[in-house]
């Protein structure tokens, strides 16, 4: 059982990470090269895993961890796909 105090702190941490994601969106829009954008999105993805884990504890729903696990396993796929595409465009995959 998470005490309300701990839960509030965790929610605040989740909020801070989401704020960080908002800041990263600037890099997604501005980012001079595609690589900047890819890395920004990859950071948002890692952020997502953390936020989901924090929410899982704060809201006391262990089932949310399953989703965090999916992102942890699959998130790199997206970034690598786009990175490969920028290395040799058209010739990926």
């Amino acid at each position, binding site marked *: 059982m998470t005490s309300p105090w701990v839960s509030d702190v965790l*929610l*605040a941490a*989740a*909020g801070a990470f*989401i*704020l960080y*994601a*908002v800041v*990263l*969106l600037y890099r*997604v*829009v*501005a980012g001079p090269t*595609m690589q900047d*954008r*890819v890395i*920004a*999105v990859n950071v*948002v*993805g890692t*952020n*997502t895993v953390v*936020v*989901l884990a924090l*929410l899982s504890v704060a*809201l006391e*729903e262990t*089932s*949310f961890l*399953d*989703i965090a696990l*999916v*992102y942890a396993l*699959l*998130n790199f*796929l*997206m970034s690598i*796909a*786009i990175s490969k*595409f*920028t290395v040799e*465009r*058209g*010739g*990926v*995959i």
Partner: protein
Amino acid sequence: MAPTPVEAGLLVVILGSALATAVLRDVLGSIIAFSAYSLGVAMLWVVLRAPDVGLTEAAVGAGVMTILLLLTIAKTVRPSEDRVLASFDPKTLVLVAAFVLALGATVPALPAVGSPDAPVVSSEVSQYYLDHAYKDTGVENVVTAVLAAYRGFDTLGEAVVVFTAGVAVVAVLKREVTA
């Protein structure tokens, strides 16, 4: 009920990345912004207590969708990268503004977010599923129970739709026999 900071932040992430998707001129940039959008949406599903939908969005958004889009632009060309942002289309914008205003006019009529008196939440149907699912099917996850048992026939039809999509792609990309 005012939005919690987490909800408000997530909505900002989602709307911001959706806007980024729209304004980036390069298709690849648009796809990257779309994957950020998908990440935000998955977090929002979790906040709205829908882990099943979040799981689907996670698997689909992180892997399948981005790669299908990338494959398509790998097969086709991309516009040159002379400008970062897409040109503005004032005519469409006027149309969209009218559309948004028309839809926005309906928003005050909707129930407040999270209100227990909202029609969907307080409806008999929802309550019936929640009360009877475990007794009827022995499955704790009500979403699964509704999906496979109460609305099993719908799900069969839905599987048919997915299958049809596969057939349609075969039909579109098939080499035709012209002889």
